[in-house]
């Protein structure tokens, strides 16, 4: 590429995938255009009530990222926009965008919602799957980002009936909009943006089951899709979380979920893949539904295989079954009948063949994932190929690449995947973009300007109070002038303003000007919630040269006017008390400073497997010095024993090329037979001592990545180790690769699944064994067609596109026999003519009678277990592990490769069992996340943090061990506890636990909170 690289990236699609990729890139020195075709970012995840496997509330964990990307200096949100054309090549693209008019000026609109109240037109709300309705002028959902409203051109009276006839029809919104944000002159815009790379994350659509007439979706009112049920569960949904039967609004007593609607189905939908998420989300919906009904609900899930293969998903299945009483019925439901009160009758065959009928109040169709409608249109415009199902995933060792260089894909655009894997792929895609644009880092990003700050320490407080009307949102209920008058009398207050919109741009300049002219050293804004507006006001204080922490808000909107609308007198009194609290707090607040810390531009990668090597390569290609430590004598880890991927790609060849690339990269220093002795320091400044080949080294590095992989379970059951015929699937793969004669001579081979997985000691699924066994079975049948291959399984978990392999195996005669935990197969050695032979006895689930197979080989699908030195590494880096010994990430969905301890990252089997492609993606994701620390050149820490006064600490150690971020350590020499302010997140738990007030959290001290209480009580 001769032309210079553009230091910007376009991310298409504003769901959780696009948001994660955008934030990672924006935090590591690239400008990002986040293009979303709907009026607000958030994607499908914004529609979810809770998310598995932790039952976190979806909005709780998504909204911080929404707000952050909404106001990130290096991200430009372009909503209501679609990609029209793309020209150029990797490093230098020109993308044409078509922006549909919003008819509302985003800058001016403050999201007060008055227009929506006045708008006469009601429209079925697609966000709530049509269950509720919205107005013609609306926001996509309550916490939408951007929060500006948008007018629906198909339903707005003026736009449909007035505009072209030049008549002023309706226009109530214009009349009532206090900040003149409505702008009907807006037309369609075409703009072009220059970017270096493009990331596609336009996500999924749920399968529309109308075609399944036998399920009666669309005709039987009490049949709904899982996404509609999700909206019904959601507290901010149409029924605000109450379970209601659509037919009569009554409370459902019995709900059935039908799995695999539009997935694993060739006949009707042609979607022969498994959508990977429906089993687990059905469990979640059943659990949450039972919680909403306080247990008085019979929840049954009709399924073929229960595919909970992700990290902690198996435990979730067990909890659903035993703790939450969800009924799991293994039966493929063909059709639904409707009784005369709209109840639904299901006739199904049980395992033992007996036919049963049950009636349910509600049936939820667990619809699968299909590619977004525009994905095909977008792919054509970008010139990238999609597979036969319309997804972009295709067999190669670059899991997030597309068929065109410089364009990457992540999330459901690639293929059906859950949110943790989506977020990993988003970070990986950001990593690819960053590597090809490494030279152009920090070229287009806006530098963070820090004006000089005047020191007001010691001055008597001079408080400026700004009481906001927020148009009529506050003003209509709270008597703002009365509150302003009251505020004038409060001690320390020298100036009070009564403003229409405190957050508007012109009011920011008024605040700056008043700080100057009135020499104010404290600011109180009485308006809305600090959660969304505090950062903005703090920025205003910074620009006015005042320490941003000398600021406090009184929430007189969400916590006052909006919730006491009918009681103006009480709301006004309460507003006064809330302002009094804010003033009594702000006068005690001190100036806080953020500490800039240098970040050593070097990374330590522990573990030289596929994940570790990919991470090291990505970092090195972005100019970072990498130290790669491998415990064994050679690189490669467990992958050395694998020959082919599921779709027959040569793993050995890939591994060799990967090892060459690592060894030949000048910035990567590889240390074999390395063992870490000691790790000190913290994010940006670690010092690690290790020995390698007899020498001791001490290196300084800014970040650390743990990629120490996993181990293969050594079976003790099924005569493993006592009979040469009993081997593991990896042994079998080896023999297959060498076309070993013993195999050629064999008549029967029996594979047994879940050996060491999904049992009491290891209650997790090792994810890869089902696909591995199917791969081997197909290769066996292709080599030797008349060889009998049996697979004894509990649940066949060939997720995603591997479902095709499972189908192919069945077609070419591989026999699958289901066994249950309490009737495991029996492997014995029985006398045969010239010695002993292996015999496997298993109960056939269809015949219900034991089946005896004399076999030449028994191939055990053994579990992947945690790395053996996991505990030692965990202690060295002070990072947690889960009960099974795998490492515990900061957040299973939103930060899957970070630890709660900053600066330490995680990838590969050490996180959880996964396929080679997934380890590659996670390795690259870890590199990207590490770059957000390394690229910032200086880390900002501090602000609201805790500190311990060494003079007053008595060494009682009550606080030591309380901190999840290991920020508190004990100084054995001085016999006092100390807090590392870089790691401290300011939660204040140590301050509340400290018995002597030696520990204090700045601006959340006991003194301040007591003052607040006093102000609120008197």
């Amino acid at each position, binding site marked *: 590429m001769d032309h210079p690289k553009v230091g910007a990236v376009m991310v298409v699609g504003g769901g959780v995938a696009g948001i994660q990729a955008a934030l990672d890139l924006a935090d590591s020195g690239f400008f990002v255009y986040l293009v979303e075709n709907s009026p607000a970012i958030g994607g499908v995840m914004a529609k979810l009530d809770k998310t598995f496997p932790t039952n976190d509330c979806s909005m709780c964990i998504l909204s911080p990222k929404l707000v952050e990307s909404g106001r990130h200096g290096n991200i430009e949100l372009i909503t209501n926009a679609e990609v029209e054309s793309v020209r150029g090549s990797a490093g230098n693209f020109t993308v044409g965008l078509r922006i549909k008019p919003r008819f509302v000026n985003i800058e001016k609109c403050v999201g007060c919602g008055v227009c929506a109240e006045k708008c006469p037109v009601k429209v079925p709300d697609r966000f709530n799957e049509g269950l509720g309705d919205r107005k013609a002028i609306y926001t996509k959902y309550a916490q939408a980002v951007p929060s500006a409203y948008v007018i629906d051109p198909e339903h707005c009276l003026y736009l449909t009936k007035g505009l072209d006839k030049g008549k002023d029809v309706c226009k109530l919104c214009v009349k009532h909009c206090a900040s003149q944000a409505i702008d009907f002159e807006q037309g369609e815009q075409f703009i072009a943006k220059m970017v270096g790379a493009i990331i596609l994350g336009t996500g999924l659509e749920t399968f529309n089951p109308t075609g399944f007439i036998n399920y009666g979706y669309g005709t039987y009112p009490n049949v709904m899709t899982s996404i509609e049920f999700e909206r019904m569960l959601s507290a901010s949904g149409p029924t605000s979380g109450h379970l209601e039967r659509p037919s009569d609004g009554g409370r459902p007593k019995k709900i059935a979920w039908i799995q695999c609607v539009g997935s694993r189905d060739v006949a009707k939908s042609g979607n022969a893949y498994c959508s990977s998420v429906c089993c687990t989300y059905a469990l979640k919906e059943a659990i949450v539904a039972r919680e909403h009904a306080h247990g008085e609900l019979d929840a049954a899930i009709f399924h073929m295989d229960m595919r909970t293969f992700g990290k902690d998903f198996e435990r979730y299945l067990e909890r659903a079954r035993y703790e939450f009483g969800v009924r799991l019925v293994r039966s493929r439901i063909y059709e639904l009948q409707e009784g005369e009160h709209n109840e639904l009758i299901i006739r199904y065959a049980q395992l033992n063949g007996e036919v049963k009928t049950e009636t349910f109040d509600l049936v939820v169709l667990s619809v699968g994932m299909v590619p977004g409608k525009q994905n095909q249109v977008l792919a054509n415009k970008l010139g990238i190929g999609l597979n036969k199902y319309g997804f972009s995933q295709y067999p190669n060792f670059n899991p997030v690449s597309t068929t065109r260089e410089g364009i990457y894909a992540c999330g459901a655009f690639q293929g059906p995947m859950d949110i943790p894997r989506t977020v990993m792929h988003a970070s990986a895609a950001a990593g690819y973009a960053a590597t090809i644009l490494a030279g152009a880092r920090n070229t287009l990003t806006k530098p963070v300007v820090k004006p000089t700050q005047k020191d007001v320490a010691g001055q008597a407080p001079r408080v400026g109070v700004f009481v906001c009307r927020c148009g009529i949102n506050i003003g209509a209920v709270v008597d703002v002038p009365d509150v302003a008058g009251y505020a004038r009398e409060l001690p320390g207050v020298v100036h009070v303003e009564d403003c229409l919109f405190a957050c508007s741009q012109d009011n920011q300049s008024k605040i700056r000007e008043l700080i100057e002219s009135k020499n104010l050293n404290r600011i109180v804004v009485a308006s809305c919630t600090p959660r969304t507006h505090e950062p903005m006001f703090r920025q205003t204080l910074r620009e006015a040269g005042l320490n941003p922490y000398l600021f406090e808000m009184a929430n007189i909107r969400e916590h006052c006017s909006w919730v006491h609308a009918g009681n103006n007198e009480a709301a006004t009194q309460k507003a006064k008390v809330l302002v009094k609290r804010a003033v009594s707090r702000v006068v005690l607040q001190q100036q806080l400073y953020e500490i800039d810390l240098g970040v050593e531009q070097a990374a330590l990668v522990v573990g030289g497997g596929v994940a570790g090597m990919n991470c090291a390569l990505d970092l090195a290609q972005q100019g970072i010095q990498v130290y790669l430590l491998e415990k064994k004598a050679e690189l490669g880890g467990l992958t050395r024993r694998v020959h082919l991927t599921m779709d027959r790609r040569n793993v050995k060849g890939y591994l060799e090329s990967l090892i060459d690339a690592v060894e030949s990269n000048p910035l990567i220093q590889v240390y074999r037979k390395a063992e870490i002795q000691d790790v000190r320091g913290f994010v940006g400044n670690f010092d690690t001592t290790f020995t390698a080949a007899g020498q001791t080294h001490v290196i300084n590095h800014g970040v650390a990545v743990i990629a120490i992989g996993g181990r293969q379970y050594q079976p003790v059951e099924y005569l493993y180790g006592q009979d040469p015929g009993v081997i593991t699937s990896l042994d079998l793969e080896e023999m297959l690769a060498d076309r070993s004669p013993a195999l050629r001579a064999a008549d029967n081979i029996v594979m047994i699944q879940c050996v060491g997985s999904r049992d009491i000691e290891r209650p997790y699924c090792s994810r890869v064994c089902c696909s591995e066994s199917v791969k081997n079975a197909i290769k066996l049948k292709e080599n030797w067609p008349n060889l009998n291959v049996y697979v004894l399984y509990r649940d066949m978990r060939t997720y995603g596109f591997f479902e095709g392999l499972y189908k192919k195996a069945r077609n070419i005669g591989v026999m699958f026999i289901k066994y249950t935990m309490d009737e495991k197969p029996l492997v014995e050695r029985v006398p045969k003519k010239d010695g002993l032979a292996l015999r496997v006895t298993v109960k056939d689930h269809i015949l219900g009678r034991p089946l005896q197979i004399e076999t030449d080989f028994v191939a055990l699908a053994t579990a992947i277990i945690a790395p053996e030195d996991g505990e030692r590494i965990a202690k060295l880096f002070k990072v947690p592990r889960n009960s099974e010994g795998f490492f515990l990430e900061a957040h299973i969905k939103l930060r899957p490769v970070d630890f709660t301890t900053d600066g330490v990252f995680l990838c590969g089997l050490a996180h959880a069992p996964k396929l080679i492609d997934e380890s590659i993606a996670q390795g690259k994701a870890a590199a990207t996340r590490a770059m957000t620390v390394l690229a910032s050149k200086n880390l900002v820490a501090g602000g609201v943090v805790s500190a311990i006064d060494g003079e*007053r*600490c*008595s*060494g*009682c*150690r*009550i606080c*030591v*061990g*309380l901190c999840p971020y290991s920020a508190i350590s004990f100084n054995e020499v001085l*016999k006092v506890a100390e807090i590392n302010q870089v790691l401290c997140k300011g939660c204040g*738990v140590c301050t*509340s*636990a*400290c*018995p*002597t*007030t*030696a520990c204090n959290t700045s601006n959340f001290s*006991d*003194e301040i909170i*007591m003052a607040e209480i006093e102000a609120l009580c008197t």
Partner: protein
Amino acid sequence: MAKLNLALYWAAACGGCDVAVLDVNEKILDIAAVANIVLWPVALDHKYADVAKMAPGSIDLCLFNGAIRNSENEQIARMLREKSQVLVAFGSCAISGGIPALANLKDRDDILRRVYLETPSTVNPDGVLPQTGCPTPVGDLHLPEFYDFVYSLDQVVEVDYYVPGCPPTPQRIWEVVQAVVSGNLPPRGATVGALDKSLCDECQRVKRDKKIKRFYRSHEIITDPELCLLEQGLLCMGPVTRGGCGTQCINANMPCRGCYGPLPGVTDQGAKYLSSIGAIMDARTPEEVDEIMQGIVDPAGTFYRFGMSTSLLKGAVKQ
């Protein structure tokens, strides 16, 4: 240099503080050498009337111990305040109500009924309760009024210095006397005769990490004399109490009960201790917490053993 007029008085107390002053043993002579004791009911025979006649401020130093429980306590407290240059709240009762203030958990009438009517050894057929006034053929008799609340000294009169402890240890008393004699006293309102760090700073026991699986009542466990008592599951209030007592109770293998009062900046010793204890319980589920709670039977009576009067809630009030 003229002798120091010294007064020692006891309100609702047990006399332990006065005996503690005697425990300075031979140094009592040094005190006698520099001080002229004008009131010390436990040891000397001065009468209230004598003190009443004294000019205001003529007492240089008054060591006032005991809580204010009845009107006589209050009356004498006000008189001594008026007569004294430096009024010292001496010992836990004067500073924060002490053991007598445990009565604030009970109702005034229940106390009288229990003491004068219900106790097995009481013979009081006609159920006579003490009255403030009692006419007799020869004249009226008066008794002080029994208040429904036990006050600390500074809730009644202004106090110049606080010397905590139940009782304050002799060495600390000697230090206070010397400080007064030499005149180098910290600003008024300060606590003297105690440290600004908690007992843990003084305590020689080995401390490892505070993760408590179970709490024990003191008779339920034989404690290891080397190890921190709290870490062994005893509710030792050392961490939340001022040092200065030489960890006497802990040295006797008994958990500290917080008589030296809270550290500077702590508003309520009992609530603060509860906050610390809650943080170091090793529990994740409500069931586990209930399990651990079995070992804590009387939080109010234990965590406010000496500080009920100055606690935030002050006592039990019938709602």
